[in-house]
């Protein structure tokens, strides 16, 4: 595979398609949840598609990711088929975690997805450890962690990044800074406004990008991955992101100015942005939309037609 540092023009259409697929997928998830079809706690990343797609596109085969409670986008971007993801949300055996995980525990080990994590910060030491394994075995692989601004306050974050830098393991820590931790705005959860400072406390290389611009994300991720892969140590990749929706599906967002989300959706939608850049006409976009919407619809069909686990299956997979 040719080593690129920026997204090729020829890829951009594909990238748009992927982001739109994630968007429509999550909108469908919202709809199905509201219809009472989906159990569990669900968090959509609507508005944050550029981060998932930009970073995952930049990965090489063999690289791995770990995600958070807001994991649908990462999971799709890392290559899990929408059918398998939707089936998981429906709790089916055909799901990517075979019905054991759910929205906050999406795994696809074969495709390098080490798993979503419902404990904020919980996946970060795992990424340090995976990167350590790559380093010890001399494999040119990188382990990538996604996490939010809220996660930068938890001890796990500090310990994991500190260790990664101390051992110069090939890891990239991707901060999706959407300025909210549930209902808590950044000003109420962090004493500093520039979260990049967090990485300086460990002497870690930091990079910054507009998380709503998929090209910028890709470019920065590529740089970060190259740095990590070349043995120079981990990188802290700070993405400036926007959460268009509530924290969880159904969140009435009493704590948030109603206009804020609308304004942000109008001005900082990564899909709109790329669409404008590609000068995609309405028809073309509609075609694309139809195409991905069909995939999403099919995934719901697939999921609904899936197999419920037997109750006793709950006693499997506890031990190897």
């Amino acid at each position, binding site marked *: 595979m040719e080593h690129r540092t920026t997204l090729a023009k020829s890829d951009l259409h594909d990238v748009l398609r992927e982001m739109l697929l994630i968007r429509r997928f999550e909108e469908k998830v919202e709809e199905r949840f509201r219809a009472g079809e989906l159990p569990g*706690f669900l968090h959509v990343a609507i508005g944050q598609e550029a981060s998932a797609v930009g970073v995952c596109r930049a990965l090489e085969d063999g690289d791995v990711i770990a995600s958070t409670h807001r994991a649908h986008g990462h999971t799709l971007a890392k290559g899990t088929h929408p059918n398998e993801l939707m089936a998981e949300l429906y709790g089916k055996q055909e799901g990517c975690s075979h019905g054991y*995980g759910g929205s906050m525990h999406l795994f696809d080990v074969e495709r390098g997805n080490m798993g979503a994590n419902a404990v904020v910060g919980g996946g970060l030491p795992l990424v340090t450890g995976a990167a350590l394994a790559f380093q010890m075995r001399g494999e040119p692989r990188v382990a990538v962690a996604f996490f939010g601004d*809220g996660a930068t306050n938890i001890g796990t974050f500090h310990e994991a990044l500190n260790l990664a830098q101390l051992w110069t393991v090939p890891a990239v820590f991707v901060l999706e800074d959407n300025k909210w931790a549930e209902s*808590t705005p950044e000003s109420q*959860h962090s004493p500093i406004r520039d979260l990049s400072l967090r990485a300086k406390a460990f002497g870690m290389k930091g990079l910054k990008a507009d998380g709503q611009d998929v090209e910028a994300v890709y470019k920065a991720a590529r740089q970060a991955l190259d740095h990590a892969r070349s043995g120079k140590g981990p990188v802290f990749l700070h993405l400036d992101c926007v959460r268009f929706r509530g924290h969880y599906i159904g969140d009435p967002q009493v704590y948030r100015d109603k206009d804020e989300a609308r304004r942000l959706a109008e001005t900082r939608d990564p899909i709109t942005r790329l669409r404008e850049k590609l000068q995609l006409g309405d028809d073309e976009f509609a075609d694309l939309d139809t195409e991905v919407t069909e995939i999403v619809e099919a995934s719901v069909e697939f999921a609904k037609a899936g197999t419920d686990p037997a*109750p006793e299956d709950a006693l499997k997979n506890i031990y190897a």
Partner: protein
Amino acid sequence: MPELTYREAVRDALSTAMRQDEDVFIMGEDIAEMGGSMGVTAGMLDEFGKERVRNTPISEMALAGAAIGAAMQGMRPVAEIMYEDFLTLAAEQVVNQAAKLRYMSGGQLTVPVTFRTQGGAGWSPGAQHAQQLEAWFVHIPGLKVVFASTPEDVRGLLWSAIYDDNPVVFFEHRTLYPIKGDVPQEIEPIPIGRARVHREGEDVTVIATGRLLHESLKAAEQAEGDGISVEVVDPRTLQPLDEETLVSSVKKTNRAVVAHEAVTRMGFGAEVAAVLQYQAFDWLDAPIERVGAKFAPLPFAPVMEQFVVPHAEEVLAAIKRTVGKA
């Protein structure tokens, strides 16, 4: 007698204490504008302001520890750990600090802190959002452990926990928040360390906590239809444990079932069974039955989740086994 939901009852205890006492305040993640992930503290920010209804960053260790430190200086903080699963993050502070500070100081310190937390299966939140870990804290000298099951109990016990001069780990069960019940007009403190007999019976004693109290009451009703008279007791406080009430009930019925939602193995029921077999050995006509979650992390798919945690059905089956009518 007014009727309150379990959720309102928690809020009432917190608010009333905060109204009468400047030293009481609450802290936790998203408890302010959002009113907590379960809506328990909704509206309290407006009444008490952000100093006393204190949103914290996602920092379970420090928020627990800061509550302890404030308690060491005479405040009575109530710190919320959003889900029990995250008690694993605060464990060092709760177990090595709060529980032991008084002792290690030779009695110089008091640590009047309360840790509220909740969890429970029922909504498929998955393996990291629904554990029941009360047994861990029962193992730690220096802590008191409460698990309340009704609106009346949760209000009266939370009140006692706030005013107890010791660290209290206070468990609530997620599925109980909407249940309603009568409560006294004025808050009546319920002493920590006293069990509650919810229903008297002759043939078997069911000792149950949290959601399983309600399942056990259902099971008792059903058993009655089969001619089995069931006594149902809620220990309410797991530490200190009202052994006397439990033992005397079992000495009367000669049979016991212990029921909780937590994993059976090494769950609280193990301690109760160990106590009962010891103190009521000569009275027992059947082995003590334990009803709890099967030995698995909580799975996501609802059919599996429901299979793992116990319901009235399993309690009833255990009741029948003890009376030999299985």
